[in-house]
């Protein structure tokens, strides 16, 4: 069908969409209903003046009705359809498509343009990486010195009865090359650390949320007041720091803050602090005394002002083992999302919901300190016969008070960086080389 005639179809679509009757539109445009009918069925050409009047009556730009506006759209559609790998779009009906679904067609061409833009960006970045002169230089330096060291050291090891002069010379060469290797490696590390887009490091919404909570010290005075309500959560989310987060991170943060609010209402700060002062950091006795669930007491302890109680760590996981909440404590590392060590008491308690477990633990490897781990698992939400029960486990981490006689359990952070040998819980090999 010729493009020009499709104006009629567009007029009809617009009129039906606006809920105007044919006779009424004809009247407004000053033409007879039968003439409009012919136009709408693409059986009469339409002149500029009539087009303007019809556009006015339909409250659209005349270009939307005329072919001009669509010409670019149609050519963009043709371009998109010409991409290799597209599986036979109906080219013969391209005008009809653009005319009947201008919004969808526009969306399609926008997406096509964005894809092309992104492809170009990827190409540019790949190109930059491949031809980055500094990167190439440093790598060349590293590889050259490694090659020399490898070759020289194997001569030293493999050559029988190597003359002392040669031996001394090769030793000196290795020494020289190892210094060069050190420089090259340091330069690489420095360069990669200082890469300009490091700030734009891909961060998960969970990371963003945790970074936000950390800047606030995991304590929100705004939600501790007697009169605090959900509107205070919304107000917090409107401030600059929260607005800087991505939308998914904001929505995660809202959930966490709403839970904080509910916890604060159940265990108000003043009375709770008074109890902690008299009973001490003993979640079971605090739960007993307040009638609150142990998990709630855990969360409350982790939300106390830092100068009040000293360091309190908390980690919460769902039934899949994913760490949905992390408040770190010195001497105990937590992986960013999943894949934590299966030996953690956090996971042990999943086998026996509601049964608390306390253990002194220490992460193997550098920087691991003995911490007191208290864990309990339970339902995360009210359950019923018509839906799956959602479990969650909480693990509170306190600095080891010292003097306890209990054995310290060794555990890891996650398998990839864990040096424990012959571990029954291992699910992937460690990247830490043997004997390192």
């Amino acid at each position: 069908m010729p493009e020009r005639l499709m104006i009629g179809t567009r007029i009809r679509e617009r009129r039906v969409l606006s809920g105007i009757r044919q006779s009424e539109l004809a009247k407004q445009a000053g033409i007879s209903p039968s003439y409009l009918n012919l136009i709408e069925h693409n059986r009469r050409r339409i002149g500029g003046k009539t087009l303007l009047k019809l556009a006015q009556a339909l409250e659209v730009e005349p270009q939307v009705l005329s072919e001009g506006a669509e010409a670019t759209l149609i050519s963009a559609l043709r371009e998109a359809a010409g991409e290799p790998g597209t599986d036979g779009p109906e080219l013969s009906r391209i005008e009809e498509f653009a005319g009947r679904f201008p919004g969808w067609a526009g969306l399609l061409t926008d997406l096509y343009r964005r894809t092309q833009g992104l492809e170009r960006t990827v190409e540019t970045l790949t190109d930059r990486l491949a031809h980055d002169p500094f990167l190439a230089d440093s790598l060349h330096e590293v590889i050259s010195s490694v090659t020399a060291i490898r070759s020289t050291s194997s001569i030293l090891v493999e050559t029988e009865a190597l003359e002392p002069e040669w031996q001394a010379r090769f030793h000196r060469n290795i020494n020289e090359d190892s210094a060069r290797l050190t420089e090259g490696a340091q330069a690489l590390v420095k360069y990669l650390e200082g890469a300009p887009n490091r700030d734009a490091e891909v961060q998960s919404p969970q990371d963003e949320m945790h970074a936000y909570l950390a800047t606030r010290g995991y304590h929100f005075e705004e939600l501790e007041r007697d009169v605090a309500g959900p509107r205070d959560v919304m107000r917090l989310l409107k401030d600059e720091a929260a607005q800087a987060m991505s939308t998914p991170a904001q929505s995660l943060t809202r959930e966490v803050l709403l839970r904080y609010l509910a916890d604060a209402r159940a265990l108000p700060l003043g009375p709770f602090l008074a109890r902690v002062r008299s009973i001490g950091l003993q979640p079971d006795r605090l739960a007993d005394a307040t009638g609150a669930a142990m998990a709630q007491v855990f969360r409350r302890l982790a939300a106390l002002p830092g100068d009040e109680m000293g360091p309190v760590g908390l980690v919460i996981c769902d039934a899949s083992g994913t760490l949905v909440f992390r408040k770190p404590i010195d001497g105990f590392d937590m992986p960013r999302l999943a894949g934590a060590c299966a030996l953690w008491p956090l996971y042990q308690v999943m086998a026996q919901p509601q049964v608390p477990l306390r253990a002194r633990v220490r992460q193997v490897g550098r920087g691991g300190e003995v911490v007191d781990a208290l864990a309990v698992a339970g339902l995360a939400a009210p359950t019923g016969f018509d839906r799956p029960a959602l479990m969650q486990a909480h693990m509170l981490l306190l600095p080891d008070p010292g003097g306890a006689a209990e054995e310290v359990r060794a555990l890891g952070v996650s398998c990839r960086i864990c040096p424990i040998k012959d571990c029954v819980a291992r699910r992937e090999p460690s990247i830490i080389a043997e004997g390192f």
Partner: protein
Amino acid sequence: MGKKVLLIEDEPNIIEAVSFILSRDGWEVKTHSNGHDAMEAVRLRGPDLIILDVMLPGKSGFDILTEIRGDVEFAETPVLMLTARGQMKDREMAEKAGASQYMTKPFSNADVLAAVRDLVGA
């Protein structure tokens, strides 16, 4: 007398190590360490085998290889290319320019020995 090998490489300690293992294996080793006049060195030494680094100051190993192959006298001389990059593109370029064999750094001494012995049919 052993066969003659010309090593064109700019890293002094690599030159020293490779020269050492080749001499111990009975080769007469000549070395040259820049790209500009590499072709002159080839003509001067008239080697039975050339070991050629890709990244040389002054001129790329690929260009030198093209010159070597362009000279009737050395069109058939085995050339072992050394490179720090193991990318397919480099390998293809080396083959296209007429390299007899291609080796990626870092290499083991045994591999270099095996390759040169193989190339001259020793």
